[in-house]
C-alpha cells in the first residue's frame, strides 16, 4: 500500500479537495480537466500537467478522499466526446480538508502572533 505519513496532505491534494468542494455542490461531481481549469483560474497559473493531476486523483481515491465512476456512455455519445471519469469528494476527504484548513489557520495565527 502507498506510504502515507498520518495526517499529511500534499499541496496539490489540498488544492484538489478545495476545488472539488467548490464544484461538487453545483455540478454534483467533477472531472479531471474541469478540476485543472478551476485550479488554473483560482491560482492564475498554467493548467496542471496531466501526470500530476491524474496521479494525485488516483492516490486520493486509493486513500479514500475521493470516489469516482465513469459517466454513462449514452451522455458522452450524445455530446460527441469521450466519457468522463466523474469524481466526488468523500466525507473523509471533506473532513481531511477542513482539518488541514484549521491547521493552516492555527499556523497563520501563530505566525502573526510571533511577528
Amino acid at each position, binding site marked *: 500500500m502507498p506510504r*502515507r505519513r498520518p495526517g499529511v496532505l500534499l499541496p*496539490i491534494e489540498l488544492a484538489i479537495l478545495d476545488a472539488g468542494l467548490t464544484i461538487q455542490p453545483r455540478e454534483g461531481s467533477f472531472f479531471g480537466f474541469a478540476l*485543472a481549469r478551476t485550479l488554473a483560474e483560482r491560482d492564475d497559473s498554467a493548467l496542471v500537467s496531466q501526470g500530476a493531476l*491524474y*496521479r494525485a486523483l488516483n492516490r486520493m481515491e486509493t486513500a479514500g478522499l475521493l470516489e469516482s465512476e465513469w459517466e454513462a456512455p449514452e451522455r458522452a455519445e450524445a455530446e460527441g466526446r469521450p466519457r468522463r471519469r466523474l469524481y466526488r469528494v468523500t466525507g473523509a476527504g471533506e473532513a481531511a480538508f477542513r482539518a488541514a484548513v484549521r491547521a493552516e489557520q492555527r499556523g497563520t495565527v501563530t505566525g502573526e502572533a510571533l*511577528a
Partner: protein
Amino acid sequence: MTGLDGRAVERAARSSLRWSLRYTAGLDPVIAARRQQEILSDLHEHTTWAAESGISRRATARALRGRMLRGIPADLSWRRTQLTGREGIRLVPLRVDGLLLAAVAVIGVVQVAVGAFIAARQVRALVIDDISSIPDSAALTIALGSVALIAVALLGHRRTRHWGAAVLAVTGVLIFAKSVQALYYISATALLVINGVTWLETAAYAIGTGVAILCLAAAAYWSNPVRRSSAASAASLPAGEETR
C-alpha cells in the same frame, strides 16, 4: 496557416496519447485502460475548451505539449507505484521544501559572512593604513552582504520566503565576484592568489550564477500560493480526521 496550426494541435494530442500508451505498457490492463481513457477525455476537454475560449491553436498545441512534458516525472512515478505497489516519492515535495530552505539559507548565511569578512578586512586595511579609501567593490560587497542579511530574515516567514530567495539570487550573482575584486585591494595575500589564478573572478561569477539559479528556482517554487501553504498543510491533523 490555420490548417498547419490545426495539425499542430492534433500532433500534440497524439503525442500525449502515445506517451500515455507508453507509460501504461505492461500494467494491469484495467488500470492502463482507465488512465488512457482519462487522458483521451482530458485532451478532448482541453482542446474543446481552448477552441471555445478563443485560444489560438498554436497556443493550445503548446499548452498540450507543456502539460504532457511537465507531467512525465509524475507519470513515471505513478507507473512505478502501479508496478511496485509503493508510492516511492510520496513525501518528496515535503523533503524538497525542507532541503531547498536549508540550501537557500546556507547560501544566505555565506553571503552575509562574505560581506562581514570584507567589511572586517576593509576596516583593518584602513586602520593599518594599507589603503586610504574604500574601493567600490568592497563597498558593494558590504552592501550586498547587508541586503543578504535582510533576505535571510525574509526566509524565516513562509509568506516572504520567495522574496528572500529572489533577493539572494540578485546578491548571489554579484557578491562572490565583487568580494574577489575587493580582496585584490585590501588583502596582500589575496592579491598574490588572484594574480596567480587568473580564472578566479570568472569562477566567482560562475558560482554566483549557479547560486542565483538555485535561489530563483526556490523563489519560483515558494511563490506558488499552494506550495506556500504546504508546511501548514503538512501539520498534523487530528487523529480522528487523518486522511487514511
